[in-house]
């Protein structure tokens, strides 16, 4: 068969390394492979024999973009195994820390990685020449998220203050109070950012996704809840592995996760928003309506608006948590290791992150299982690409490539997490 090949050596503005391969035969897309070839780092293997208490610091190193997510899933899973429950005040501080990461990570993606796609710039620095105010306010917003991480975590990347049972040190009211003003200003920057991205031109594209997210009785989900889907799945986190399975495919060093019955699904901001719209503040719901996104949104390109709305939400939630802050009597509750298995799922900025640990009586890790959001979205991203490549096959190859890359960025793939850069190979007959 006569084939033509287009090769793009590098998918840019994503975290990590991978390639995209499109097979075209007889004028149709015959195959799509999102290849993740970041070298494997073997976290699940190297965790064996380590102390359960070391899991939050070690697993943070899976991803420098969302270390708090790894720390949160790790501590909650170990606490589950050891039968530890935190009081509401420590719980609130963990939620505040997570707000910091949502603000920082979402703003990085919106302003630095994804917005340039919609406006035709190669990066945020070039975009700053035309949209200086947007980039400056975006950086200020990102800095506000990092300010939360720095105070509660000690530093922005790989925070040091999270431990099984709570924290090493909790802030005083006086230390936390100034951040209320920072969050109030950040909220205004977040609303301005939402307005800006809502004005982008959005392709007419919709898919019948199965959305999967956490669901909490009263809160917009972060650290706790059940795992639910738009097609009726509703399970406890401990049942996660009965509903989802990971597959190892030849073209990728990241494992792909799918529903056990077959079928891909989508995690992340769009899934959270659609499944938990009723848990958002009325103010955020009103902004969603103003900016034209309603629950049930199935256009992945509009996820950038939802991501911005989640930043607004995280700023409001952070303001509230700071205002209500009641310093816990101790930075951590007592921890007594015991043999057993613990599971946890938390909402990383990119979607649910599952951890399971089997521990012995001394608290050492016997086995670990970690399922990052990008592994879960990988099949869905390939499905999106199949549709977009089929639609755009007649367009010039550089346009086709740009559209494919933008569609990948819709899902903010953290390829480092999956443990991996993209090569686009289009073979045409």
């Amino acid at each position, binding site marked *: 068969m006569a084939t033509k090949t287009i090769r793009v050596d*590098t*998918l*840019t*503005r*994503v*975290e*990590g*390394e991978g390639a995209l391969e499109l097979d075209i035969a007889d004028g149709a897309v015959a195959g799509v492979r999102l290849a993740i070839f*970041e*070298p*494997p*780092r*073997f*976290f*699940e*293997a*190297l965790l*064996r*024999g*380590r*102390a359960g208490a*070391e899991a939050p*610091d*070690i697993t943070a*190193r*899976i*991803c*420098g*973009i969302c270390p708090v997510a790894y720390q949160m899933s790790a501590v909650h899973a170990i606490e589950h195994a050891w039968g530890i429950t935190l009081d509401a005040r420590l719980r609130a501080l963990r939620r505040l820390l997570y707000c910091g990461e949502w603000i920082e990570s979402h703003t*990085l993606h919106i302003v*630095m990685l994804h917005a*340039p796609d919609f406006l035709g710039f*190669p*990066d945020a*620095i*070039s975009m700053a020449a035309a949209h200086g105010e947007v*980039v400056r306010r975006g*950086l200020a917003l*990102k*800095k506000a998220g*990092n300010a939360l991480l720095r105070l509660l975590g*000690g*530093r*922005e*990347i*790989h925070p*040091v*203050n999270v*431990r099984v049972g709570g924290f*090493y*040190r909790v802030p005083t009211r006086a230390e936390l109070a100034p951040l209320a003003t920072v969050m109030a200003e950040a909220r205004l920057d977040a609303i301005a950012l939402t307005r800006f991205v809502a004005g982008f031109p959005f392709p007419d594209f919709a898919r019948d996704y199965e959305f999967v997210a956490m669901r909490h009785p009263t809160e917009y989900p972060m650290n706790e809840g059940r795992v639910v889907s738009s097609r009726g799945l509703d399970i406890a986190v401990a049942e996660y592995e009965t509903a989802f399975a990971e*597959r*190892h*495919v*030849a073209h990728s*060093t990241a*494992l792909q996760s799918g529903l056990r019955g077959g079928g891909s699904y989508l995690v992340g901001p769009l899934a959270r928003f659609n499944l938990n719209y009723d848990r958002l503040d009325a103010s955020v719901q009103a902004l969603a309506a103003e900016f034209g996104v309603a629950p049930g949104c199935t256009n992945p390109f509009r996820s950038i608006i939802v991501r911005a709305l989640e930043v607004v939400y995280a700023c409001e939630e952070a303001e509230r948590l700071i205002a209500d802050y009641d310093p816990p009597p101790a*930075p951590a509750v007592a921890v007594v290791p015991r043999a057993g298995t613990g599971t946890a799922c938390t909402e990383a900025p990119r979607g649910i992150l599952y951890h399971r640990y089997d521990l012995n009586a001394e608290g050492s890790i016997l086995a670990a299982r970690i399922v990052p959001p990008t592994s879960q979205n990988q099949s869905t991203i390939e499905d999106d690409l199949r549709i977009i490549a089929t639609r755009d096959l007649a367009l010039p190859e550089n346009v086709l490539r740009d559209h494919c*890359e933008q569609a990948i960025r819709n899902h903010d793939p953290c390829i*480092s997490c999956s443990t991996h850069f993209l090569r686009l190979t289009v073979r045409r007959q």
Partner: protein
Amino acid sequence: MDARLPSTRPRPTLAVWKFASCDGCQLSLLDCEDELLAVAGALDIAYFAEASSTLRPGPYDLSLVEGSITTAQDAERIRAVRAASKYLITIGACATAGGIQALRNFADVNDYIAAVYATPAYISTLATSTPIAAHVKVDFALHGCPINKTQLLEVISALLAGRKPDIPNESVCVACKRRGTPCVMVAHGTPCLGPVTRAGCGAICPAYQRGCYGCYGPAEAANTAALAAAWIALGADRTSLHRAFRSFNAAAEPFRKESDAHGDENHPG
């Protein structure tokens, strides 16, 4: 950093490279929210895939290299990066010491592969994770897991100015004293790696009432054996000593030796 270099002088070109890593150290550059636009004004960012779709071929004046070498392809790629770079600076524990993924160096990599992947035949990896300096000449190493962004800006500024970077060569203990943090070992009996760990983080852990866990790697002339004895005196067991020295800088020689002296976590002593 002066963003207004004379326009007649071409701006030095910067490239940022990733090998096996978490992306956190290159993220440190994007985390310079107040300085990023100035850095982009002073330097011509020619290759930074995480931040820009414009990827220009070398040669480059300055390459920042994140990550360790864990595949045969990456062992080739780092040679090409070196050949294209006037200055090559390694950033972070993966690039300077092999990172947490160097724990495979102490294990059977095939066992590691089998523990994670259902079809080991699909995986191509080296048995070890090695620092960049094991493969090519490195002009300056910036340590830390992750690096400190203020130190990164200092290294870049120094290079632009043609001077030696002002990166203090001292232990976390010195930084703690300067910060006025009471010693967690003396005051609370908390085991701490501060006496043998390179400063640069800002001595954060003791300020958060925990012992330093060594993420900046061994300080110069670190007396790890004396510290291990002090840990034992505080009641630490050999397994915890072994684990403490065998983490993010496990393959850095002083830490490797000290961890070996305390056995294997599965077979302590």
